[in-house]
């Protein structure tokens, strides 16, 4: 499931069922992941949380076991340390708690559990200059696919061009212009052979693309391919 593939109705229903709690664990993970990358979905979830929050009052209050606070404090020590490692994967956490790095890790994890897992699958999330996840790139030896996480188009008089820079190469290879409508690009292995460490970037170019064969405009989004199998 990609965030962009959802219709508004599906988005609304998923957000509602996520908050209601009826979704199974795998779907919850996907919704949490999608929400991390899709602010509209995250807003829907927040709206539903607000709408249904009064139902929390229907649970009968009950005092917790007396030692519970000490246990919590023990887990949180030492105070300065970041969150301790947990038994369960962190992608159960509601979406907006993720940083972009965690998002990339979560995507890798999702690809990992998606059966069957083809060998040598790679991915990256292209981040904006403000570290916002904007595009996802999935790749294997057969080629590469770019999809928009938050659909956004270039200014009317500009085009967005996709590039790949293999490690060690001095000049990037153009993978073509990003279609304004779909925001999706598929590249076959005959154009580029994806490999881990390859830099993927999107630049702003004149309509029709860079006239020189090299990027001429600013880099809008950038990311580096990594194996979907390591964590």
């Amino acid at each position, binding site marked *: 499931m990609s965030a962009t593939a959802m219709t508004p109705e599906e988005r609304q229903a998923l957000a509602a069922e996520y908050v209601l709690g009826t979704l199974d664990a795998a779907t919850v993970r996907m919704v949490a992941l999608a929400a991390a990358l899709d602010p509209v979905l995250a807003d829907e979830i927040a709206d539903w949380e607000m709408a249904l929050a009064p139902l929390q009052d229907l649970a009968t209050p009950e005092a917790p076991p007396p030692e*519970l606070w000490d246990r*919590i404090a023990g887990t949180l020590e030492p105070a300065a340390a970041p969150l301790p490692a947990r038994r369960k994967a962190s992608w159960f956490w509601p979406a907006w708690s993720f940083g972009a790095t965690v998002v990339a890790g979560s995507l890798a994890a999702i690809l990992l559990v998606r059966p069957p897992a083809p060998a040598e699958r790679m991915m990256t999330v292209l981040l904006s200059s403000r570290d916002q996840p904007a595009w996802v790139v999935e790749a294997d030896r057969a080629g590469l696919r770019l999809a928009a996480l938050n659909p956004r188009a270039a200014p009317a008089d500009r085009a967005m061009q996709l590039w790949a820079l293999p490690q060690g190469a001095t000049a990037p290879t153009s993978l073509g212009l990003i279609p304004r409508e779909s925001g999706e690009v598929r590249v076959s292995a005959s154009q580029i052979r994806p490999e881990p460490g390859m830099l993927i970037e999107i630049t702003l170019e004149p309509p029709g693309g860079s006239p020189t064969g090299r990027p001429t405009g600013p880099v809008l989004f950038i990311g580096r391919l990594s194996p979907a199998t390591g964590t």
Partner: protein
Amino acid sequence: MESETPLSELILLVADGDRRALRSIYQRESTRLFGIANAVLRDRDAAADAVHDAFVRIAARAGQYDQTRGVASAWLGAIVRYAALDIARARGREIPSDDPALGDSAIAPEAIELLDAKAEGARLRACLLTLEERIRNGILLAFVHGLSHAEVAAKLGEPLGTVKSWIRRGLLRLRECLA
């Protein structure tokens, strides 16, 4: 005077690493929050795990709290409920399914009158009352008691697919009503 510090301010202090503020939140809210977890899990040990997990998340996520997106107590309650649901899912939700105390009467009709205590709750109750009773009960069983679609279907004695679409339609109607 910490009891007079609004919860939302305590959360902001937690975001700055103030462990005493987290403890104040715990002291003030843990009975309500443990009740939310225990309603989902009906197992005090598991509910304690859920509240534990939730407070670890609250400590880590306090900086994400957005006061414009709802009151602090609801934010805390949602984190606890998600933590409890995670545990219920990890256990295959086997706990609630054969609990005889959880019949259709688990949430007595008068119980949702509790919602009238707050303005937004009264509004939600009015909208819930526009739904067919079994759909309303399905939504309440899911939210308050953490029942899955399949468990709600078993409770109501209806096919799973029917219950799924009832609940979905019921939710969307609620949203229209609340809008």
